[in-house]
């Protein structure tokens, strides 16, 4: 058995200081950053801030980075949270996908990996880079996801992080992160457009920011619209105009297109002498105009959906390397007379916002800052006839809950299949199924007599829990599920155990450390609270009970045994639950003025 280190008292304070980072997990590249007061650090890989989201297989190992290897996987983000059944709706040009199982897999070396496994490799690599700078491992992170990522994609992203022992403080949407990066210094209030044209995807969001509160009013996007598409158009153009280029290797052609494109962000004509090709800005703009028009159409749809008058929008925030293209700024200027914000680097602005939010959430920063997010896509249930009955509509502030009552379709029906779906369309075929479960033991009644309450609860990350209850008969059946979409518990367990990220010893040590931190936190919180209001809210017996529970947890801490600590911690939480509840109720007193609290509680 491994010996467990006992740290000296000074070190135990170190335990409490978390190393929290912001991660922009992108389709083409990813970034990792840390904010500490005024200091913002981007951790670099081989002196690059932009770390390619490419996983390669070399010498029996998975390596993240652009090795120019043939045995590599790009743009794996496109497959995150997508089941094999949904592959038809996805365009994943460069990936060779095996869809024989629920979760699609791609080949690398002699093995096949799903998108969660490969994403976790990218996350692990990012954290290792940060670790090499800071000499301590990453505890927790805020990870950004596209605004329109559905529940399944969010769960998959979170799982990828958990697989490599990164605690996810919060998933936030990329445009929101960008606005945080711009908003926190200026303390701005108003409505904003975030226009994000990245390497592989386009996102546009209308945000309302007020007193440090960020609300996403609407989002629109296209998962296949970005710099890569521009490169592809340029490739085609070059091959049409210079047929001799067909003999170039695919990568060479891409690099040529990329360098021409970059030159055109500040020149009127781009020339490459080696291959003797050139293109002028007008031709280039004409070439990519359909793509830009597509983004503008999505932007105008987002504005309509946000119900905000475009005159009431303060700024357009530009995000993503592709927004360096001149045509974008001039088109936006033409259509909307709104001031464009572009003084932050569009490549790093999302990671910067995530880092700021990580600092706030880890408790190391200002307390008055709050990010209020909304549900990105409506959640519903399949009803008879293949239609979706929405239970929680998109753009509802989260956390949120809602309940709908459903009934049976046939006489004597005792079972009901509940299919949880996400999406805006009425037709079930246009929505994504998050999971199905069967509610059985419904009492046999005439059609329409049974009453089945289905309750949706969405947490602050936008993740869903569904419960169903039959309440016609005296018997009550409750079933609670987290939509799984192909991520069966066995599969998750299997992925976690086979992930070779951390040695077993390391994991045990870490778990112990975490239980100690958790316990110290609980003791600290209760003791602080007792100082404030134990006289008002507790009688002597109650106070004694809580103090006893604190004492036994403190004794348990000395044992350095994880089970003993956890048990004592659970005991303290159970013992103090009523007190915490009283405090919460009481704290509303300060907010509700003009009424005696006794009148309402």
């Amino acid at each position, binding site marked *: 058995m491994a010996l467990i280190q006992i740290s000296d008292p000074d070190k135990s304070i170190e335990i409490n200081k978390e190393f929290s980072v912001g991660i922009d997990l992108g389709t083409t590249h990813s970034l990792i950053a840390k904010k500490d007061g005024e200091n913002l650090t981007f951790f670099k890989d081989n002196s690059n801030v932009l770390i390619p989201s490419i996983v390669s297989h070399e010498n029996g190992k998975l390596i993240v980075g652009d090795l120019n290897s043939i045995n590599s996987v790009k743009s794996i983000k496109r497959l995150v949270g997508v089941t094999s059944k949904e592959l038809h709706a996805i365009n994943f040009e460069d990936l060779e996908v095996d869809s024989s199982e629920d979760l699609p897999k791609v080949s690398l070396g002699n093995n096949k990996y799903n998108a969660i496994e490969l994403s976790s490799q990218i996350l692990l690599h990012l954290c290792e880079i940060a670790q090499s700078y800071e000499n301590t491992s990453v505890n927790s992170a805020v990870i950004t996801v596209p605004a329109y990522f559905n529940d399944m994609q969010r769960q998959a992203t979170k799982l990828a992080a958990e697989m490599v022992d990164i605690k996810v403080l919060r998933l936030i949407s990329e445009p929101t992160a960008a606005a945080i990066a711009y908003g926190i210094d200026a303390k701005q209030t108003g409505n904003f457009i975030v226009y994000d044209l990245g390497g592989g995807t386009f996102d546009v969001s209308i945000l309302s920011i007020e007193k440090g509160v960020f609300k996403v009013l609407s989002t629109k996007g296209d998962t296949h619209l970005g710099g890569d598409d521009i490169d592809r158009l340029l490739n085609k153009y070059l091959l049409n105009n210079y047929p001799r280029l067909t003999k170039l290797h695919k990568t060479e052609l891409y690099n040529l297109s990329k360098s021409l494109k970059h030159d055109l962000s500040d020149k009127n004509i781009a020339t490459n002498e080696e291959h003797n090709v050139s293109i002028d800005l007008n031709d280039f703009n004409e070439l990519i105009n359909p793509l830009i028009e597509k983004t503008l159409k999505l932007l105008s749809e987002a504005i309509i959906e946000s119900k905000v008058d475009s005159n009431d929008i303060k700024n357009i925030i530009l995000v993503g390397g592709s927004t360096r293209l001149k045509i974008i700024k001039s088109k936006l200027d033409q259509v909307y007379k709104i001031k464009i914000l572009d003084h932050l680097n569009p490549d790093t602005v999302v990671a910067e916002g995530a880092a700021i939010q990580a600092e706030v959430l*880890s408790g190391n920063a200002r307390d008055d800052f709050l*990010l209020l997010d909304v549900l990105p896509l409506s959640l519903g249930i399949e009803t008879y006839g293949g239609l979706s009955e929405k239970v929680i509509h998109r753009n509802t502030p*989260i956390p949120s*809950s809602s309940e709908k009552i459903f009934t049976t379709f046939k006489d004597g029906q005792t079972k009901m299949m509940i299919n949880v779906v996400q999406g805006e369309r009425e037709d079930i075929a246009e929505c994504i199924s998050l999971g199905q479960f069967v509610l059985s033991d419904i009492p046999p009644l005439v059609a329409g007599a049974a009453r089945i309450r289905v309750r949706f609860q969405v947490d602050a990350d936008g993740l869903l829990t569904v419960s169903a209850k039959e309440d016609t008969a005296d018997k009550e059946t409750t079933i609670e599920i987290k939509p799984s979409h192909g991520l069966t518990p066995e599969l998750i367990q299997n992925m976690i155990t086979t992930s070779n990220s951390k040695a077993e010893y390391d994991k045990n040590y870490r778990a112990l450390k975490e239980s100690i931190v958790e316990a110290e936190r609980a003791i600290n919180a209760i003791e602080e609270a007792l100082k404030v209001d134990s006289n008002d809210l507790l009688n002597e017996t109650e106070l004694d009970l809580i103090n006893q529970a604190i004492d036994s947890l403190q004794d348990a801490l000395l044992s350095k045994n994880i089970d003993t600590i956890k048990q004592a911690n659970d005991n303290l939480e159970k013992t103090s639950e009523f007190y*915490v509840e009283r405090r919460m109720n009481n704290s509303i007193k300060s907010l509700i003025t003009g009424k005696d609290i006794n009148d309402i509680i």
Partner: protein
Amino acid sequence: MSVLKLTYFELFNINVNITLDLNELNNKYLQLQTKFHPDKYLNSSAVEKTMAARISTHINDGYKILGDLTTRVDYILKINNFTIDENVTFKNNQFLIEQMELTETINNSDTKQYSNIKKEIKSKIASLILDMKNNLSSGDFDILYQNNSMIKFYKKNINQLSK
């Protein structure tokens, strides 16, 4: 009793009324969320986390319902124990005929006339709101329900005109 048992009006400390000051609602909402949002409890104990998540959900649910006229009125009916039999559809033949005529008018007019039609509908809604205020003070929940249902139809008309 806990915060979770408060009616949304009590939670936001706003008088029960058909109309309300949306700015005030918004301010109260932000105040409450700044206090109870789960983000403020990430470093708290598990009990506090669960409580905060529940209260924050309650605040969001209330904000959603009080923020919109028709859902607000439905909620007022609910807290006054006025239950609506879901199997009985809205029956006001005169109004339904008016609706059919209105739909026809909308279909036959060009977009230039839309703003005028909208104005007319909005003035009808305004007068229904006045009626509903009286219904509430006199406790005529049945009529309150009928009037609210009519507003729901009018809102659909306006949506149609805004497309």
